[in-house]
């Protein structure tokens, strides 16, 4: 891939804090290398803003290698930008050409309030996990890893669900701001394994109760979440969560 430089126009959402009314600001960035990542491009702009004595654009990021789930950004109408199964930190500027205008917005959902500019508060996801996305293990000697036989297909499906990095793109894309794809991944990864079996019912019930309490919408199976998920989490997990939940709801005391 040949290297080139480009000048770009950015329309970026700026908002001082959760209460403030935000608006779009337009910026020009010059000489951006096609080898840069999208976040590095914003770093360049922020350096300039700081040099001019202005407030840099706040955005979330951590690992910058597509595994932590901290980066977000709704870029030109798509969470994590134009590439398939990709995080914003792994989006590279070769996706753009000289003179392009890029609109950058934060995740939009009542359950994800904007903290500042492009940063949103995703602690609702943490509370859903805290409600049941774990297994309880008593202390003592570690159990032999091979003591519990696990069917290969199930282990694979569980692992695929465990790939969810909790970024929230599914919520950002969903017309109902539903967190079902995330929650279904977190339920599935445990429900398919024998270690997850003892708390199976309470897990599904408590995580959904928390999800509803956080103000996410109900799933209508449109599939937008699956299409934007950087980790390819499958919609099938949502149907599995429905089964887990309904089974528990109809039989639990």
């Amino acid at each position: 891939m040949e290297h080139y430089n480009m000048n770009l126009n950015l329309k970026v959402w700026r908002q001082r804090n959760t209460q403030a009314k935000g608006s779009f600001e337009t910026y020009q960035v010059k000489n951006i290398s096609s080898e840069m990542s999208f976040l590095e491009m914003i770093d360049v702009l922020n350096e300039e803003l700081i040099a001019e004595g202005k407030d840099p654009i706040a955005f979330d990021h951590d690992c910058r290698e597509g595994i932590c789930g901290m980066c977000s950004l709704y870029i030109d109408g798509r969470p994590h930008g134009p590439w398939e199964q990709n995080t914003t930190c792994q989006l590279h500027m070769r996706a753009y050409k000289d003179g392009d205008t890029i609109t950058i917005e934060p995740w939009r959902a009542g359950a994800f309030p904007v903290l500042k500019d492009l940063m949103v508060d995703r602690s609702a996801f943490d509370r859903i996990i805290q409600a049941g996305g774990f297994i309880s293990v008593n202390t003592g000697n570690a159990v032999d890893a091979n003591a519990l036989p696990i069917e290969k297909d199930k282990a694979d499906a569980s692992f695929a669900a465990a790939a969810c990095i909790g970024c929230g793109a599914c919520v950002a894309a969903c017309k109902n701001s539903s967190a079902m794809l995330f929650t279904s991944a977190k339920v599935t990864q445990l429900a398919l394994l024998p270690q997850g079996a003892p708390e199976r019912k309470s897990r599904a019930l408590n995580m959904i109760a928390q999800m509803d309490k956080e103000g996410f919408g109900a799933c209508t199976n449109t599939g937008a979440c699956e299409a934007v998920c950087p980790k390819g989490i499958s919609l099938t997990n949502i149907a599995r969560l429905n089964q887990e939940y309904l089974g528990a709801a109809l039989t639990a005391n």
Partner: protein
Amino acid sequence: MTWKQAFTSSIGKKLVMGLTGLFLIVFLIVHVGINACIFADLNVAVWPFDPSDDGAIFNRAAHFMGSTILIRILEVGLFAGIILHIVQGLMLEASNRSKRTQGYAVPLAGRGSKWYSRAMGLLGTLIMIFLILHLAHFWVKARITGSDDMPEVAGMHDMFNLMKVTFSELWVVIVYVLACISLAYHLLHGFQSAFRTLGVHNNKWMTIVQSVGVGYSIIVPLLFALMPIAMYLGWVG
């Protein structure tokens, strides 16, 4: 977990949508089957059609539905199911919309989801408006007010004639056809969605659900749409 919680959580509400939706799907099979009896009168003299039938078979089927106690009891369940589906559907739609107060400047439009999966509330509302007209056209006249267009023939209401008169007006035919198109799209998403909501996730079964869903969503609304068209154009009656 109380019963109330089980049916009022986000998944519980969807369960109600899915169950009532599937109930309506079953009802429509009966409905389309009975009404398709009008085609017995089709103007081609090839078995099973008989141009001299003049709606006799259809009128008998309609009479059976109206005069059988078990069917009349099921009719009460049907009204309850429709009302539950409509009220729950509109409330869910409103609640889901309220979860994002500030929208995007650039909409996600089209990516990853079909337009009709996002338009279930709108499509449902169109069907609901049609239903009001439809009940006024037939149910109210057959069960409550009676109508000059529906004389007694051999001790039975001539529903066939009522259909003929109703569908002699072009605007009625157009409204019915549009409603059938709305229904087709509502079901194209709704049929498979209902099974997902009920927790079906086995690939093998989902393939069947999806194929049957597409087949149902095309065939049933198409048959319904052909009824006003056939009567208006004089293919039957």
